[in-house]
């Protein structure tokens, strides 16, 4: 892993007394390689390394007997801070129903996440309504309806020919009059290059004024995670991120990329296909995982 590689670098440099900036650069090259292998965006890596370098040019590190450990400690701390410090809960404040909208690329796990969120909230005694605004994907509405049954949530949608923003309005009305505590809107997968679909995303947001606008991101996403997250953030204004499929062996560097470019908190991690496979996000665990 990285610890061993860094230790190797510093071992080579030992016996020179105090370390120099050049020595730190050499060590940080290993960190850079490790982060790129973990799919962290190359621009984010560059900025992150610069941050770490600044902190590493201290007497603490340069005169340390175990500089590798010191550098790893700094890298880990900087990463945890970027990933949000400590776990942040879902914002359900204000008059009910609290509105949550899920957005994301095709296949990232939005519909399944809607079901998981519903189950999670039901466990804390809340009445949840699940609304499907996906009129495009075959059987998407049926998929969410099944998850509503499984999670004990209410379900609402309209005919597939309906405008998703109109479905959103209808769903909000049902949540309001039906005394639901939370209403979760599932939307169709979309790429940020599709202007029409991005406009639709904004119209859905305008229809229901969400408390939480969440980007659902696959943990295995590569370099484009930055551009995708930025585009969604600019278009709809994200309040949080949910990372899915972290039960895979993907290092998950996309999490760092997205945290860096949006500054938005990662609130949950989805850890499997069952509705129960859902946890509050732990920045420290994710940092260790990305470092590998």
């Amino acid at each position, binding site marked *: 892993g990285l610890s061993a590689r860094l230790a190797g670098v510093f071992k080579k440099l030992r016996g020179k007394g105090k370390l120099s900036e050049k020595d730190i650069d050499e060590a940080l090259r290993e960190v850079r*390689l490790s982060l*790129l*292998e*973990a*799919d962290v965006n*190359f621009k984010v890596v560059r900025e992150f390394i610069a941050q770490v370098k600044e902190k590493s040019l201290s007497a603490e590190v340069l005169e340390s007997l175990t500089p590798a450990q010191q550098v790893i400690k700094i890298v880990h701390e900087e990463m945890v801070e970027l990933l949000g410090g400590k776990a942040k809960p879902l914002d359900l404040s204000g008059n009910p129903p609290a509105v949550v909208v899920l957005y994301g*690329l*095709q*296949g*990232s*796990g939005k519909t399944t996440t809607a*079901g998981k969120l519903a189950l999670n909230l039901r466990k804390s005694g809340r009445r949840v309504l699940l609304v499907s605004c996906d009129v*495009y*994907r*075959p*059987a*998407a509405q*049926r*998929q969410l309806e*099944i*998850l509503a049954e*499984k999670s004990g949530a209410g379900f609402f949608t309209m005919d597939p020919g309906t405008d998703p923003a109109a479905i959103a309005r209808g769903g909000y009305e049902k949540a309001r009059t039906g005394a639901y505590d939370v209403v979760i809107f599932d939307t169709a997968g979309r*790429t*940020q*290059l599709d202007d029409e679909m991005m406009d639709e995303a904004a119209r859905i947001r305008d229809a229901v004024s969400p408390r939480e606008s969440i980007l659902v991101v*696959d943990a*295995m*996403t*590569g*370099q*484009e995670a930055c*551009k*995708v997250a930025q585009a969604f953030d600019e278009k709809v204004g994200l309040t949080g991120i949910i990372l899915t*499929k972290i*039960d*895979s*062996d*993907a*290092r998950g*560097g*996309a999490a760092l990329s997205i945290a860096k470019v949006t500054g938005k908190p990662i609130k949950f991690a989805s850890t499997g*296909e069952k509705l129960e496979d859902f946890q509050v996000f732990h920045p420290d665990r994710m940092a260790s995982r990305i470092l590998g």
Partner: protein
Amino acid sequence: SIFTGGRVTQEFLDELEEVLIQSDVGLKAAMALRDRIQEENKKRNLKTPEELFGVMEEMVAEILEGVSEPLRTAPSGPTVYVLVGVNGAGKTTTIGKLAERWRGQGKSVIMAAADTFRAAAQEQLAVWAKRTGSTIIAHQSGSDPGAVAFDAVRAAISRGVDLVLVDTAGRLHTKGNLMEELKKIIRVIGRELPGAPHEVILVIDGTTGQNGLNQARVFAEAAGVTGVCITKLDGSSKGGIAVAIADELGLPIKLVGVGESADDLRDFDARAFAKALFA
């Protein structure tokens, strides 16, 4: 400027390496290509950025062409394709597109709804069957996927159907029991029809980073993958993981998904793909 006095600078090579990394080819491939272009430049003394990018495109295209193969069909009787891959990659949609293609050639198609696990998986495939005029074979939710595949191949043989497309549940390559289930589905198909499946198509999401290589490695070993389909290349991702997969595992990239409609399927074109990496 990147070229000073007609020579390639380290800055330019750095930038080139970054373009490659940005496209998800991975660190290993990016560094190897950078070294090779540096060598090439010594030999050929390339003068302009255009020349250099041209050579780079050539190298990438060669890696991909070197392992390329067309989609196989059965010499006689039904052709059987099984689509495999991790969750959400685009398997079910790609089956819809393949059905559209074969139906467009006047061929008959059976879809096997062997994802008996995920919510509304069979309903989703049924819509594609209806859209493409294909027959669908499905069992109860939760039933044995091998049995669905078996019935579909049986039906294709007895009815003289041209193509069987087997949809499987998304599964992470890290889940041993699910990989065993997949092996069983493929064995069942092979026992029922010698030579089948004619293709085990691994569907990889085009937005995937380096984990795509892990996926390909494990699925290839477990399921005998014969070809790869990279989906969602209509997004901003370049799908560079295809290069790493071709280079390190020698798997042929056969198909590309470029959208969510029935006609958004293309045969893999190595030249066009290499060009797009540097666009």
